[in-house]
């Protein structure tokens, strides 16, 4: 329902681009500025000369490589486990009937609304008791739990759009149920699996509060917690902080642009159809 463009809409659009986009621009442009220019009381909107020294400083800063490594490991474990478990569970709710299914689905949807900042207190006590704090496995299992409801629900949506007849044909042709899933259903689910994997990746890569509470020792930080520690009592290294922020944001921006459409329609689609 696009209408003829109006001057007022276009001007508002330009203002919106400037206001929404400025922080991103300011981050990237600061990251390429020389130190003297970053620390100037009269900052300029355009950098006068470009340098990579902030990136060098950020990469050589204490904790960068270990945090990067920790983040990558946590993300990989989270993505693999949550995808595997979500595939099983989504097949169960999209393809079979069982007693308790309704309450399982309802709790998947309701549990996503629990405020993390309220749950963190008993969760921390639980993980302490299980001796899972300060362990990458403990953080990853927590991420899996928080990501699973959404991933199961999303995969179920993909599965619901694949006709059951295809698997039944495979069964008729002599496949076992497992073979039918493995060779017929899985390839058809691939796009859904990719989208879900990217979603899990972004969630685990960005998460701050759980990582901040669960991983306390210096060698166990993830990138967001490492970023939050840039400001010390002696001040903040703004140039390297902006370079580090750009680096942390980059993979998310790339992956996010790949699945953005699906998420935008996914969240609200229930409103129209349900």
């Amino acid at each position, binding site marked *: 329902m696009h209408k003829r463009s109006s001057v007022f809409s276009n001007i508002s*659009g330009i203002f919106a681009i400037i206001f*929404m986009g400025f922080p991103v621009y300011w981050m990237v442009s600061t990251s390429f500025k020389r130190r003297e220019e970053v620390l100037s*009381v009269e900052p300029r909107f355009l950098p006068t000369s470009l340098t990579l020294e902030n990136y060098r400083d950020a990469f050589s800063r204490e904790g960068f490589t270990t945090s990067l490594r920790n983040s990558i490991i946590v993300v990989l474990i989270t993505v693999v486990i949550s995808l595997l478990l979500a595939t099983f569970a989504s097949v169960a709710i999209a393809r079979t009937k069982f007693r308790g299914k309704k309450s399982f689905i309802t709790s998947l*949807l309701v549990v996503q609304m629990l405020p993390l900042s309220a749950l963190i207190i008993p*969760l921390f006590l639980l993980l302490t008791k299980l001796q899972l704090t300060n362990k990458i496995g403990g953080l990853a299992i927590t991420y899996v739990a928080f990501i699973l409801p959404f991933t199961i629900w999303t995969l179920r949506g993909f599965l619901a759009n694949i006709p059951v007849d295809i698997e039944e044909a495979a069964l008729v042709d002599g496949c076992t149920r497992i073979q039918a899933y493995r060779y017929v259903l899985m390839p058809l689910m691939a796009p859904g699996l990719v989208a879900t994997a990217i979603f899990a990746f972004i969630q685990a890569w960005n998460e701050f509060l759980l990582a901040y509470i669960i991983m306390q020792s210096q060698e166990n930080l993830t990138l967001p917690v490492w970023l939050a520690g840039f400001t010390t009592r002696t001040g903040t290294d703004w140039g390297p902080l902006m370079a580090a922020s750009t680096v942390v944001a980059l993979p998310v921006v790339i992956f996010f642009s790949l699945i953005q459409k699906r998420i*935008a329609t996914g969240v609200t689609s229930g409103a129209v159809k349900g």
Partner: protein
Amino acid sequence: MTTLTSKIQVKRTYWPYLLIAPSLFIILLILGFPVFRLITLSFQKFGLEEIIAEKPIWLGFENFKVLLGDPEFWIVLLRTFLFTFGMVAVSIVVGAWLAHLMVRMNAVIRWILNTTLILVWAMPALVGISVWKWMFSYEFSIITSTINRLGFDFAQRNWFTNTFSGFSIIGGIVAWGAIPFITISIYAALTQVPKELLEAAAIDGASSRQIFRNVILPILLPIYVILISLSIIWDFQVFTQIWVVLDNRPPSEYYTMAIYAFEKSFGLSEYGMGAAIALLMIISLLGVTWYYIRKMVAIGDSNA
């Protein structure tokens, strides 16, 4: 016929349970048990001594009595409501307004705006916070210097000594991060309004105002309700933005329910009291988002 076969399946198959078992186990352990523990914890005195002795002291409603009798609790609750209301109002109004204008924008401007929104949406929370902290830093703030260049005299300025400007900036970070999702969702819904409906209304002589009120609005209403409910849920529990912007040591004027519960638990090791605050936080949220929860339950029912 279908109910008959389904009944047989229910009786004979156990493997759906095997398939959901691992997910169910992890969700119950990491999300379910803590909800239960949060409730029991809020009726206990549970500090460092009790953790070491592994023996909590049951207090009954003592924690809640202390909290509800403490003026600070009410101030924090009111502050959280006001802060949430401000953020939800700004992000929904600006987000919706932009979405409705996007329909009437030049294609190039719309494409650039859309790309910008996706870029902002993709920013990790911690990255957004770092950039905003930098924009409002004490010595080198681009905002302060721009205001000064416009002829005001702000000199160097700590934006966070005044809680109003501090909360405005923190709320700005939250709204900035939330607007892309809101705008893109509403815009997507707007483009899905069936053309035939609009044309039929126009042929029947409806004015554009009437079309908006009687055709577009009823279609958009459920989406607005969902977006507002989600915004309330997200904004009410904002933690990271306040915590990190104030260098991991927010002063008590900046306490919201989430920070208050966190400080009581992890700062003062009064986990029972912290849990009581967190529980009251969930209860306040339930009241505000009741409609949304019912909607979710209905979706669960219709898909079972």
